[in-house]
């Protein structure tokens, strides 16, 4: 079974495994569990302060105090963000992946360019679009002016800012989803298509019946990545509007309440727990749906 010796040698894999395990438990798993516990306490962001269990008070504060309206808006924003990003990003990515996969000239170049925003990172991407969307000198506003005779405030608009953030998020991560689809598509044997062509199946039919079932695993991966990503992203909001103009989401609120809100740490902890429950719900639903599809074909 284990080919690399007996006795002490048998334990080397385990010993080495303990390094990542320890990192994981100390920095992520432990704090995660602790955060759940904190959500039931009045722990404060002060050195050496003690804390007591306060039951569900933090959860009550979240939803039954002066700012509960904003809490609900954050939840709704999070859901909008997740749905739009997941659907549009994966839809566009799949479409482009299929197009690029039909041996277009320069396909390496296209996919390199579409993946580039991921490489640039959020801070840079936010600044680039800040420049594009500059209401005063920005090119997009000039374009709007020429085309529609209309000016926008972009990241400074109560009605549009959130939409623009969603756009930037999709712009940034479309290439990532596309890459995963491309990988899936390239694992589809070419002769399968050729067989389809001889049968006289239409493009759409061959995509639906041959390609799609085969790339269903990449579909699942992309769904999960975008759901979890969209639910927990806040850096793009921090870097564009900083949560102003009705652009807050739950993930942003956790950050804001932890570092900029009151010194109470129980409240952001409770918010983290609720965020977790919502993510869990959607991940379970998504996995069930895509698994069903994989079985169907």
């Amino acid at each position, binding site marked *: 079974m284990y080919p690399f*010796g007996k006795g002490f*040698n048998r334990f080397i894999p385990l010993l080495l495994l303990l390094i990542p395990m320890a990192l994981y438990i100390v920095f992520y798993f432990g704090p995660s569990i602790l955060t759940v516990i904190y959500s039931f306490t009045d722990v*404060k*962001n*002060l*050195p*050496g*302060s003690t804390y007591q269990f306060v039951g569900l008070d933090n959860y009550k*504060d979240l939803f039954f*105090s*002066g*700012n*509960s*309206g*904003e809490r609900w808006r954050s939840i709704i924003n999070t859901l909008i963000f997740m749905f739009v990003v997941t659907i549009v990003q994966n839809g566009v990515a799949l479409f482009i992946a299929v197009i690029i996969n039909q041996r277009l000239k320069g396909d390496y170049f296209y996919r390199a360019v579409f993946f580039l925003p991921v490489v640039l990172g959020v801070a840079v991407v936010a600044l680039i679009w800040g420049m594009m969307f*500059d*209401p*005063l000198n920005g090119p997009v506003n000039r374009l709007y002016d020429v085309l529609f005779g209309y*000016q926008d*405030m*972009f990241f*400074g*608009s*109560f*009605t549009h800012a959130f939409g623009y953030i969603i756009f930037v998020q999709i712009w940034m991560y479309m290439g990532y989803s596309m890459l995963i689809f491309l990988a899936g598509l390239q694992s589809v044997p070419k002769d399968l298509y050729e067989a389809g062509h001889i049968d006289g199946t239409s493009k759409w039919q061959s995509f639906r019946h041959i390609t799609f079932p085969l790339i269903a695993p990449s579909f699942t991966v992309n769904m999960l990545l975008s759901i979890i990503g969209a639910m927990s992203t806040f850096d793009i909001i921090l870097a564009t509007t*900083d949560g*102003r103009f009705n652009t807050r989401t739950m993930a942003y609120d956790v950050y804001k309440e932890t*570092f*900029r809100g*009151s*010194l109470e740490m129980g409240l952001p902890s409770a918010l983290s727990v609720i965020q977790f429950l919502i993510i869990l719900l959607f991940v379970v639903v998504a996995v069930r749906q895509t698994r069903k599809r994989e079985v169907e074909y």
Partner: protein
Amino acid sequence: MIKKLSAVLLAGALTFSLTACGGSSDSVDKETPAKGDKKVIKILHWKQDNINKAVEEINKKFEEKYPEYKVEYTTTGPDDEFKQAQRARITANDVDVLADLSGMRLSPQEWTPGAKVPDWQQWIDTGLIADLSGQAFIKNYNANDIEKAGTYNDKVYAVPTGKVAMSGLFYNKEIFEQNGLSVPKTWSEFIKLNDALKAKGITPIVVAGKDVWPLKLPVFALQAKILGGGDQQKWIEGVWKGETAYNDDEAVEVLDKMKTIQDNYMIDGFMGIDYATAPSYFATGKAAMLADGSWDAPTVAAANPELKFGYFPLPATEDAAKNASFVGKYDVTWYAAEKGPNKEGALKWLEFFSEPENYTTFVKAAGFIPTQDNIQTESDFIDNELTPYLGDFELAYEIMMINRQNIGEHLAAEGVHTEFLAPGGLYKTAKELADIQQKEWEAAAPK
């Protein structure tokens, strides 16, 4: 076998020494410039070019006079970013001298059950802030200012370094003269002035709406002169006791007047102008007035040294006498950390800073109204533009207000948030916003 194992250990050691290098070089970084046994004093402040330069100058002189110290002066972005850094550093006991954005705000009173306790008060209560009561340098400052902005439970914890006016408008003297306009004394004169400018095709007012908080500044004038018939304190107590309300006539008048200004007289797209850019609009004559705090006078002057400009209080009411004074706050306020790495150094630095000569350097660069007596600022701006209106210097709403915990966003950060008004915001009338505010105020009441 042993050979292989040792090779592994070596590899492991190598990777770790690599990262350890990263870790240790950090401590090296900190100590090399200090050479030998210099004691580091960590000062945290926010970015404001003119003030930063003055503080750096003082730091240099300090290091010359006391070579055993090394000052590490860190600045962060203003507002929220600073508040975050401030909190992180004091919690980690990683700062010696700490700036705050204003003098001490009011702490909860008997008549404010369930109020939000300000951070500084929690820090003092947890023993994180040094007691400065006995320090000789406190006597350099005006006793009344120390009492108002630096004292808690009869002990001095903070040094307010200067006063600023917040409720005024910078105005371009040339544009005013050319069009035969003069500084308005009443609200209706102010409206007439704006209309006259508009009729000439001149944009009346620029404000940095993108940062949102600058919109509060003109509102402070309205609040101070209108709420409680000119007695804010009475109105604030009233709102806690249920005698006044966010949607009563006075509060709606405040919002309504600001709405009038925002709708008619602000530059197009003011919600897209950030705070750093706004002064350049004014300085280059793109707008006749700039709604900003008096601390920005040096920035305006730097943006266009040729510009002749003045500063007048926004006339909130029809009573010229009542209008003729500024509303403001204490600006940059120093605290010394009790449990920081170098408390003794912090006190020494504050003492040095408070020496009249150094303090003068600071206050001149900052454009503040001094909190030490007998300081010559030699500033025409302060002497001619601010002093005439300093008679009844009042603290702004954001300093006086004691907020409820978990208050809604329309009242958060001790403001009334006129950015929520149409056309930028979603509330079409002042009354609509006022009703929401009152609802949120009541919803935040302790249960």
